[in-house]
């Protein structure tokens, strides 16, 4: 089969769209890792939970899709707050217990969702139906909407971190924990905020992912791995790094799948991770 130029353009657009959902899950992971110094192993399940909340509201209860996404952001943030208070905070600094508990948590959440929602493929309604044509390439509107939503939320987060008092305090806590403590910043408030924000973003990521691809209780595992991959590429704790890392990852996957088949599309980005870890361990935008 010949691959035409329009296939490549289509591939890039798909890649940007996937990249958008990866960015939304990666931002939470990278912020939580930066501020709390822990990898939130159940973050993929938070993403999945966000997607299923949107499914419950919009498909089963008939709520407007965009309203459902907003409600899911709020409820998923609340779930995040509960996870932080009950599981993450008491285990801070105890690495092994922490890994066991969050891994267990992700299994419990997967099973709970599987039991609550019957088996079978589920999909969210399209974000925006139809497609348009640019230069001979058909582009589906929902993919463009997904990219725009992801980038707007990232911009909002960046502005929050740069311009507000609590945002600056969060950035400061990530850069020097003791230095932040000595300015009177409450570390528990910071970890609660970062998990709530990260969970809300993951919920939107889940909704975008779920409207373009399918929903299933195990979707979080793969999404989590993408999140980790983009952190390695972009650099830990960096917002621009997460954006660039997510877009590179999405486009690389999509184009590699186009040229070498979808299996390679999944494997080769992991090769990219290994290359980054060897050549530039701090990532594109990371600090030392």
């Amino acid at each position, binding site marked *: 089969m010949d691959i035409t130029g329009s296939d490549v353009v289509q591939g890039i657009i798909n890649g940007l769209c996937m990249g958008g959902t990866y960015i939304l899950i990666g931002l939470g992971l990278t912020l939580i890792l930066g501020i709390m110094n822990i990898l939130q192993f159940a973050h993929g399940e938070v993403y999945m939970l966000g997607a299923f909340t949107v499914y419950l509201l919009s498909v089963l209860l008939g709520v407007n899709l965009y309203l459902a996404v907003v409600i899911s952001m709020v409820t998923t943030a609340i779930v995040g707050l509960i996870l932080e208070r009950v599981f993450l905070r008491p285990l801070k600094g105890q690495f092994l217990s922490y890994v066991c508990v969050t891994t267990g948590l992700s299994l419990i959440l997967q099973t709970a969702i599987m039991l609550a929602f019957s088996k079978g493929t589920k999909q969210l309604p399209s974000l925006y139906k139809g497609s348009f044509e640019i230069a001979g390439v058909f582009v589906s509107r929902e993919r463009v909407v997904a990219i725009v939503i992801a980038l707007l939320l990232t911009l909002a987060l960046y502005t929050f971190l740069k311009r507000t*008092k609590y945002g*600056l*305090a969060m*950035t*400061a806590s990530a*850069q*020097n924990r*003791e*230095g*932040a*403590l*000595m*300015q*009177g*910043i*409450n*570390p528990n408030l910071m970890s609660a905020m970062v998990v709530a924000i990260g969970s809300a973003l993951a919920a939107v990521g889940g909704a975008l992912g779920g409207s373009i691809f399918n929903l299933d209780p195990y979707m979080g595992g793969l999404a989590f791995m993408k999140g980790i991959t983009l952190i390695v590429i972009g650099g830990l704790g960096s917002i621009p790094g997460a954006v660039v890392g997510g877009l590179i990852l999405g486009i690389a996957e999509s184009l590699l799948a186009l040229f070498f088949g979808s299996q390679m599309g999944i494997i080769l980005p992991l090769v990219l991770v290994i290359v980054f870890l060897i050549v530039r361990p701090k990532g594109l935008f990371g*600090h030392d």
Partner: protein
Amino acid sequence: MLLEIKDLWVRYGGAEVLKGISCEIEEGSVVTLLGANGAGKSTTLRAITGLVTPAAGEIWFDGKRIDGQPPQKIVELGIRHVLEGRALFPYMSVLENLKVGAYLQKDRTKMSDTLKRVFSHFPRLEERQGQQARTLSGGEQQMLTIARALMGNPRLLLLDEPSLGLAPKLIREIGKIVRGIHEQGVTVLLVEQNTRLALDVAHTCYVLETGVVAACGITQELVKSDLVRRAYLGL
């Protein structure tokens, strides 16, 4: 007394770092803690701001018992701790570092007044306010940590080794800054390896030796004692 430490014990793992230290700091004074590496100077400061939890003893600040409280509560009472090694936010700008220093200040006008005052004391920082903290020179970074602490309008300022790694000219500058802070009515507790600088600015001096107070008193009188001079001050 603004700060009172009574029979303070601190253990790290199995090791006893502080073995019953007592010390008093009067409001408006400059007090220095001297002693060799490992004598327990930094640990004393870290116990005051709650970064380490004492095994026994009491710490009182302005009539309130503060040992066992989390750091952010202690800082809120008006204590600021300039940590050894500066603890700046390296990838934030000078101005952002200072803004975070005023985190507890809810009144925006008061914050900008404090910022103006801090900039008038540290004009270099005003010139460099947009630069990332990590790009400053060692001396400027030290100024920034002190300035950041002053943004919190402290009543008691704890300074841990502010002269560390600085050239002699800058060390004299630090001395001037400490005096300036004192003149504004801030009480200062200074930990220093540089004995000359410490004795120069402090009214009262405590000498620590492996976790106990080996000598204390008015600086002027202490330096007259031959024993103290030879054994602890290296003069």
